[in-house]
């Protein structure tokens, strides 16, 4: 029995069922990945819905990023489930009072939507490939083209309409998918650290900054590898949005934190001990990872920084934000469980390295989308427009 689970050390009094953590590092990775989807899709909609031209160079790549990560959103949950073979029960008999029951249909709908959006945006390329290739490759592209090679002006007009409509539906879709993840935690009155009305909003806005940050890092990395120049206007646009959403996120997080402390409900001493104790490292990483980018971005926007300094400043900020948001997910998911429901004790979670719910599996689930993204960029080159423009 002992090897099946880890008994967490604790101080004070915790309920005897709390020494085994129900949700581990996989459930930290899960909202992190959905957040990256919501964030990168948001950037893609800036161009495809709102027509913000400066985001054009990354818009198509942002969509592929969202799709790559979305494919892996269900995986941490499936690894976590005691009976993954019964996962579809949530589709056959979704319990309408359960936030979690929404996941199957919402995620299914959203994956479908992202695939359709990708199909439409790259349709000209798909048709061209279907005509230029032979064999299996040709079959693949032909299926994607629905057996049609119609790229007449009339057909393209339809495509543009669908692209806009899908992006328009996808926007609330992405945000519902991630707001829902926040609700899964925020709606639980049993856990003081989670039970906050602001939780879905915090999840959402932090998702957007993590997604933008990921795009910045990928854009800079790809430009280095493919040796094309970064688009200055696009980088500035990313800096502005990152700055805006970062402030929004920090204000929400601060409000939530102040509310918790100010209300000072029963067991507030234990909450303070959590902050100073088991969660101190995580909270400090989140704080430093948020404040440094805020300062850097503020200075760059004030000084209208351009070119290489902008690239360096933005890349550093993005990297720190990626870490800060991961820490935030940890602090919510793990922190909530380290604070005992008795409000009289604290536990310390030690993530197992191996095993179904270990760090290795969680890291693999996070890294896998990058390989899929690489494969997708081979099938649907997103850079043609961007690299020409630069």
């Amino acid at each position, binding site marked *: 029995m002992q090897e099946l689970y880890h008994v967490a050390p604790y101080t004070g009094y915790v309920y005897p069922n709390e020494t085994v953590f*129900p949700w581990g590092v996989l459930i930290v990775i899960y909202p992190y990945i959905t957040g990256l989807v919501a964030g990168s899709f948001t950037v893609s909609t800036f161009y495809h819905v709102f027509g913000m031209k400066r985001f054009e160079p990354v818009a198509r790549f942002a969509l592929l990023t969202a799709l790559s990560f979305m494919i892996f959103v269900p995986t941490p949950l499936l690894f976590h489930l*005691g*009976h993954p073979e019964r996962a579809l029960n*949530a589709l056959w008999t979704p319990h309408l009072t*359960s936030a*979690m029951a929404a996941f199957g249909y919402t995620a299914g709908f959203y994956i479908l939507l992202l695939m359709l959006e990708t199909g439409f945006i790259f349709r000209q390329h798909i048709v061209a490939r279907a005509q230029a290739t032979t064999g299996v490759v040709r079959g693949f592209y032909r299926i994607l083209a629905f057996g049609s090679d119609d790229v007449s002006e009339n057909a393209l007009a339809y495509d543009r309409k669908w692209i806009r409509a899908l992006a328009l539906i996808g926007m609330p879709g992405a945000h519902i998918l991630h707001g829902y993840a926040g609700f899964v935690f925020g709606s639980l009155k049993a856990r003081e650290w989670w039970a906050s009305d602001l939780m879905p909003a915090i999840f959402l806005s932090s998702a957007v900054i993590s997604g933008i940050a990921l795009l910045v890092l990928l854009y800079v990395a790809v430009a280095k590898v493919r040796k094309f120049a970064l688009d200055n206007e696009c980088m500035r646009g990313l800096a502005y949005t990152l700055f805006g959403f970062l402030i929004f996120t920090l204000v929400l997080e601060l409000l939530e934190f102040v509310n918790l402390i100010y209300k000072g409900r029963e067991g507030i001493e234990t909450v303070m001990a959590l902050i100073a104790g088991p969660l101190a490292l995580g909270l400090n990483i989140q704080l430093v990872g948020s404040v440094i980018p805020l300062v850097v971005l503020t200075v760059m926007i004030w000084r209208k920084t351009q070119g290489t300094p902008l690239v360096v400043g933005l890349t550093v900020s993005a990297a720190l934000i990626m870490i800060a948001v991961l820490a935030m997910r940890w602090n919510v998911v793990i922190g909530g469980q380290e604070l005992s429901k008795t409000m009289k004790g604290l536990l310390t979670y030690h993530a197992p390295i191996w095993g179904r719910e270990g760090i290795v599996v969680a890291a693999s689930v996070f890294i896998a989308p990058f390989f899929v993204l690489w494969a997708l960029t081979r099938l649907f080159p997103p850079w043609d427009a961007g690299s020409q423009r630069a």
Partner: protein
Amino acid sequence: MKNKTHKTASGRRVFLGKLGKVAVYAGALLGAARGLAKGESSAAGSFPTADYDWTKHRWGYGVDATRCIGCLRCVEACKIENGVSNDAHHFRTWVERYVYLKGEDKPRIDSHSDPQNIAAAGSQGEYRFDNRYKDAEVEKAFFVPKLCNHCEHPSCVQVCPVGATFKTKDGAVLIDHTYCIGCQYCVQACPYGARTFNYEQQVTDKCTWCYHRITKGLQPACVEVCPVNARIFGDLMDPGSAIRKFIRENRVQVLKPETGNAPTCFYIGIDKEVS
């Protein structure tokens, strides 16, 4: 040439489409037939068993903490009766000990799963409170038996994504172990820490009030073995039942009333620090 390939491809697609439709209609018909069948079966006789009608009972549970001697026979009997794993982290009921030492304003609390108590018992399959306070100056001390509160508005049922946990008509909150997906959302949602995850079966586990016993006219195992009547069980629909008497004759309270879960386990003799 190009046109020809095109035609076959679309022909295949139409065929696949038809196949899909056939499957859908067949499925829908089958589902409808099943619906009819289950309507018929539920109409006949009492439910859930031939001798027991769940609409004729409404169970309730009482805990008299002033009587509990902390012998933990309830924990042992519960595990044996329900085949719960033998280690200290899997259980369906537990007992807490609250001890106020002189000069301290907060109690020291422990339960059967405390490492020192496991050591005193000899193994995780035996249950005993050690005597760590025998030489201490104790101001006030008592034991509190705990179990699932079988709430009127159970958080665990609310959050279960698939309907694997539910409240029966006679008041018990049960788990369908063959339907649970093992997400542990219910473990998170329960404010009372009453659910554990069964790592052997990979499903969540909880107190059923020994549903297989109470539907046969027996008491739950924990109530059956309690040597001091600290645990009381009975039918709230029966004015002469032990639980109705317990509620009538005492000023009872429930744990964490602020959650709105409305437990149907009623306590007497507990202290403000018990939650």
